[in-house]
């Protein structure tokens, strides 16, 4: 019919235009990837051993993502226009990359762009030379583009398991080293079970084809079946009885507690170290959450409290600074550390009481820097150790329980080697639980509500009778307390502290954790720490590109989910207010936030 022909024609045009646009962007992205050196750096590893290298996978992912965006943005509904958009996007991107290869063949790009080496061009053309090789990237890109279109065309029932399966394969491929190392460090019985699995999965430099196939089928199949079950359950309209639901919940909570207790043992020493850092940032995040999230005071110098907590414990317990009185027990030094840090919080709070917004931010930033400079200065060298820092800081031994290497035997799991990384996990766990408890209680108390009132509008809060001074100082003090606690444990775990460790970047990272997690939200802090501290640790092997990825992820997170990963209900409402209202959803009750 005439109208459908016309609409399919415009749809086709829209698709092609979008494909062209995103193809150009995609080409630039591909060139950027090449010039960053990712192709050479990743060429040593494979996703599918001998078949698909990691560097080519990165390019394929880029083509795929661009084509996906092209199709989505074009809002094309006809299959033909989707396919056309995807294909054109891929073609253009691939051709642009070819441009780089061609230009690089004649012009010495390497004197400006250090990664534009002959090796790069060889890798991009799969060593086929200029003529044949130039066909490869566009072909691969077109393939990826078509795949993106196909993904949109297949029914969601099939698409979800497919994408889950593919993502799993890619993740297993990228994180091969980590997976193998983790399997190697699990307790004896688990290792006995899992080692053969990883042996089948991986062959040499990447995944074996068989292993990847099996893993894909398994994961995709499970996802498909669970999707079926969920649909069936929602259709059945049968709810479990309240008693049954309660039993399920308690079992669930018990399970989670058991898992938390066993986590370091199950995951091994490397992941315990990662979890230690996550725990540290959770404690700090909760502290900053009080200052920034509850009370709305933008503190960019949070690292100062971390430093004071660490240095107090270090100075009091280390025998290297030549002091007469040395506290040998970390637990005895801890209260001093906490008192010192609370005093510091109040001291910081006083001058900034009347400052608003960004003035507050810069002064707190300055405070953080001043503490770092003083800690490393020659002036205070005899007290604080100066540039050399302090070593031999006490471990938090409790009587007969010493932190160090222990061999234990667990039922079911076999022989386990406990090292200080595992042991500190428990200390951090206790710290986290304590701080979460305090934070939740504070949030639901009068003080917590006072903070939120101050955050929303200071003048009105004051008019309602809230003592601004006390409220703000208490916010700083509580925030400082948590920061100092984290610092004290950190100093003990590392056994040595250096002033250069307490820099501005830590303040920024803690801030990022709470904002990405969801400002003001306590579960958000935990999620944010896992995402921004835990995940980057896994990418340490891609050393050079870690920060590139970190920055990109931060930007993307804020663009797509500015309210955070686990936001306060109120926040989500604020940020998506218009969307919710237009959808006709009634605003949820604000009793719980």
């Amino acid at each position, binding site marked *: 019919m005439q109208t459908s022909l016309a609409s399919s024609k415009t749809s086709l045009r829209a698709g092609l235009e979008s494909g062209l646009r995103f193809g150009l962007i995609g080409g630039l992205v591909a060139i950027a990837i090449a010039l960053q050196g990712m192709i050479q750096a990743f060429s040593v590893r494979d996703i599918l051993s001998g078949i698909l290298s990691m560097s080519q996978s990165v390019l394929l992912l880029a083509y795929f993502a661009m084509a996906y965006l092209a199709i989505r943005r074009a809002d094309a509904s006809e299959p033909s226009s989707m396919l056309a958009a995807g294909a054109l996007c891929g073609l253009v991107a691939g051709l642009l990359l070819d441009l780089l290869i061609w230009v690089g063949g004649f012009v010495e790009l390497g004197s400006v762009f250090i990664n534009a080496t002959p090796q790069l061009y060889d890798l991009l053309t799969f060593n086929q030379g200029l003529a044949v090789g130039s066909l490869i990237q566009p072909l691969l890109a077109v393939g990826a583009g078509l795949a993106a279109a196909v993904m949109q065309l297949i029914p969601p029932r099939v698409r979800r398991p497919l994408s889950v399966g593919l993502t799993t394969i890619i993740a297993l491929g990228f994180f091969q080293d980590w997976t193998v190392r983790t399997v190697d460090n699990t307790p004896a019985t688990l290792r006995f079970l899992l080692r053969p699995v990883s042996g089948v999965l991986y062959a040499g430099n990447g995944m074996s084809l068989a292993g990847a196939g099996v893993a894909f089928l398994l994961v995709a199949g499970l996802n498909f079946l669970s999707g079926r079950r969920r649909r069936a359950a929602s259709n059945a309209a049968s709810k479990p009885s309240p008693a049954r639901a309660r039993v399920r919940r308690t079992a669930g909570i018990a399970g989670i507690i058991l898992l938390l207790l066993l986590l370091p043992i199950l995951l091994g020493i*490397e992941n315990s170290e990662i979890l230690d*850092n996550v725990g540290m940032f959770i404690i700090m995040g909760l502290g900053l959450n009080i200052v920034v999230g509850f009370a709305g005071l933008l503190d960019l110098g949070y690292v100062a409290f971390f430093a004071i907590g660490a240095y107090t414990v270090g100075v009091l317990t280390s025998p290297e600074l030549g002091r007469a009185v040395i506290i040998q027990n970390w637990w005895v030094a801890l209260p001093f550390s906490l008192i010192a840090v609370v005093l510091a919080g109040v001291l910081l709070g006083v001058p900034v009481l009347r400052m608003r917004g960004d003035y507050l931010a810069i002064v707190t930033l300055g405070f953080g820097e001043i503490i770092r400079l003083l800690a490393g200065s020659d002036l205070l060298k005899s007290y604080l150790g100066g540039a050399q820092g302090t070593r031999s800081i006490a471990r938090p031994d409790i009587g007969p329980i010493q932190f160090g290497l222990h061999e234990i035997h667990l039922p079911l799991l076999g022989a386990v080697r406990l090292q200080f990384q595992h042991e500190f996990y428990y200390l951090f766990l206790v710290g986290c639980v304590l701080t979460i408890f305090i934070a939740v209680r504070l949030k639901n108390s009068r003080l917590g509500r006072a903070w939120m009132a101050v955050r929303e509008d200071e003048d009105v809060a004051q008019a309602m009778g809230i003592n601004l001074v006390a409220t703000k100082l208490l916010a700083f003090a509580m925030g400082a307390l948590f920061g100092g606690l984290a610092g004290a444990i950190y100093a003990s775990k590392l056994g040595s502290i250096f002033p250069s460790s307490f820099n501005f970047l830590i303040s920024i990272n803690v801030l990022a954790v709470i904002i990405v997690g969801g400002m003001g939200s306590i579960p958000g802090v935990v999620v944010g720490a896992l995402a921004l501290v835990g995940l980057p640790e896994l990418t*340490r092997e891609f050393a050079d590109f870690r920060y590139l990825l970190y920055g990109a992820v931060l930007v993307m997170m804020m663009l797509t989910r500015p309210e955070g990963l686990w936001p306060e209900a109120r926040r989500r409402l604020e940020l998506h207010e218009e969307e919710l209202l237009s959808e006709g959803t009634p605003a949820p009750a604000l009793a719980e936030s």
Partner: protein
Amino acid sequence: MNRKWIVLGVLALSGLVLAACGGAPAYDCTDAIGCVNIAPGDPIHIAYAFVTSGANSTLGLDTKYGAELAIDDKGGELLGHPIKFDGQDSGCSAEGGTAAATKLAADSTIVAVIGTNCSSEAVPGVPILWDAGISVVSPSNTAPYLTDPNLRVLGYFRTAHNDTVQGAAAAHYVFEELGVTKAAAMHDGGPYTEALANVFAQNFQGLGGTITAVEAVSPGDTDMKPALTRVAAGNPELVYFPVFVAEGGFICAQFRDVPGLENTLMMGADGIFTPDFVKACGANVIGMHWSSPDFSAFGSGYADLVEKYKTKYNVTGTLAPFHAHSYDAFNIIAAAIEKVAVVDSDGTVHIGRQALRDAIQATTDFKGVTGNLTCSENGDCADPKLAVYEMKDQAEFDAAVAGTMPKVPVWKQAE
């Protein structure tokens, strides 16, 4: 210390238990700590913990290249097995060192580690590695306390010289050879530079000289003139600034513009004895001195090493002064492996960890590129020959800009 025996005993027990339960072949490992068993065709895994990203990455890359060249010279294999050389980025900080060491310790295939670069990484990192039975040889740690008898970790060795040696040599040269009686020192607040500057100052004063000022700048500072003005106020005859390329470049470039320092001598340390620094400074650098390891005393293999370095990595000059130390560190480990490894009839290699450590400790008179290396009982394996170099004239300046620093020192430390 009792804990040491408990730890060793526990490690021995765990080694036996692991060997029994780990499904290992029927080799009876009698090593106190445990063995690494390498099946035929599998690689011998030696790892590194270097600063490969961030501001100091040239140091990490330089030491990595040195080790890689050593592997190349061995044909990429040891005892018939290929050598696998990879590692972790240690970030020149305590937490970086901890993270890198933990990851490496989690990998049971690693036989030994070459690392770390910065002393701050070694303090927490080395004990973690040794707890896993991994011996560590550092090519560039210079902090004295790492080989202090009370603090030293048994599995730790280093082929780099001690800060105390370099600072003392510099002071000696300045006072005795140059006849300077008033000097000043500058550092950048980092542990390495601060230690060196202060060792220099103390030694200089001990010899009878006067230190007019010890000034510090911060990493990232660009305008050094105010700090230099303060230094100038004391009228020193020489300023010793053992800092790194960025700050050193600024200090050197701005030095002569500061009234009072027009005729003052400049002296730096091995951190800035590189072409990058010379380029950053410009022609002002003519007349400057450096304290440094004595490259001319390095064995005959050194010149070859530099040539291979420049060719393989496509650079005009070496990136930092520790590549040769890294080369030697690898070779010491390789020699020790060859000494203690037990090779089965089918080609499986068994390396006892305690035995490896003892073999490295027993290194005596090893002919390395950096000299004759003998490991002291505290872990210092270096043959510290310090020297002082000078950029005498335009010709040497041009050569340096093109990639070659002066080859012949103007003074060598007497043995």
